[in-house]
């Protein structure tokens, strides 16, 4: 009887660990994600863009995100005519924090929010910022965890390579 109770208890405890999400891997298909543009609140469908996407998850409290956004802005400006778009998904818990950050660091690229909070879990965000380069077929081609200024050239090369396909 006690052994049975113990087994049940172990199963119960283990069920808490099953909720931990698994991370997206290179080669996986772009997951469905419910996003809204920060600018006008309109729906943003990642699946139907037909572009090479650079999906970046950022937050106002994240230091490296403040460094990555100007780089993404520059990359977006450079390649936007080649069917490329950066989508910067904000993960702030308080929307006002994100708005204040964007006032200080204005960007022209598409910024979005994930109202239902499922997006980072679906992508399996492991660090802040986390970025995913998605090719035209909707496959994840590169995952960038964190951001370092020394990686700018390498990232740009990867984007160029995917755009050239």
């Amino acid at each position, binding site marked *: 009887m*006690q052994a049975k109770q113990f087994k049940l208890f172990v199963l119960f*405890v283990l069920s808490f660990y099953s909720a931990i999400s698994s991370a997206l891997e290179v080669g996986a298909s772009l997951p469905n994600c419910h996003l809204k543009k920060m600018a006008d609140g309109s729906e943003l469908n990642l699946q139907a863009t037909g572009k090479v996407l650079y999906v970046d998850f950022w937050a*106002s*409290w994240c230091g490296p995100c403040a460094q990555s956004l100007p780089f993404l802005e520059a990359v977006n400006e450079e390649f936007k005519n080649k069917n490329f778009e950066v989508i910067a998904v904000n993960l702030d818990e308080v929307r006002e924090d994100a708005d204040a950050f964007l006032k200080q660091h204005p960007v022209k690229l598409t910024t979005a929010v994930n109202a239902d909070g499922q997006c980072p879990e679906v992508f399996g965000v492991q660090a802040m910022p986390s970025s995913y380069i998605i090719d035209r077929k909707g496959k994840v081609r590169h995952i960038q965890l964190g951001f370092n200024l020394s990686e700018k050239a390498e990232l740009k090369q990867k984007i160029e390579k995917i755009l050239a396909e």
Partner: protein
Amino acid sequence: MIGKLRYALMFLVCLTGCTQQVMPWERGFLAKPQMQLDTDPERSKIMKHTFSSKEAATGGYGVGGGGCGCN
């Protein structure tokens, strides 16, 4: 015996709350200045330096050395 086991199980179930993982995107509130153990690192560094000079001790902050405090 079963009664004791039941209480032990209830206690352990409460502990499962500690297994909740704070995800990378959920650290906004933890990153706020008011959540830091040391709200003013610069000031506290100066205070520690002064303290170590005045008391001829390092103050138990895990930092080696003492010194005159003149540099």
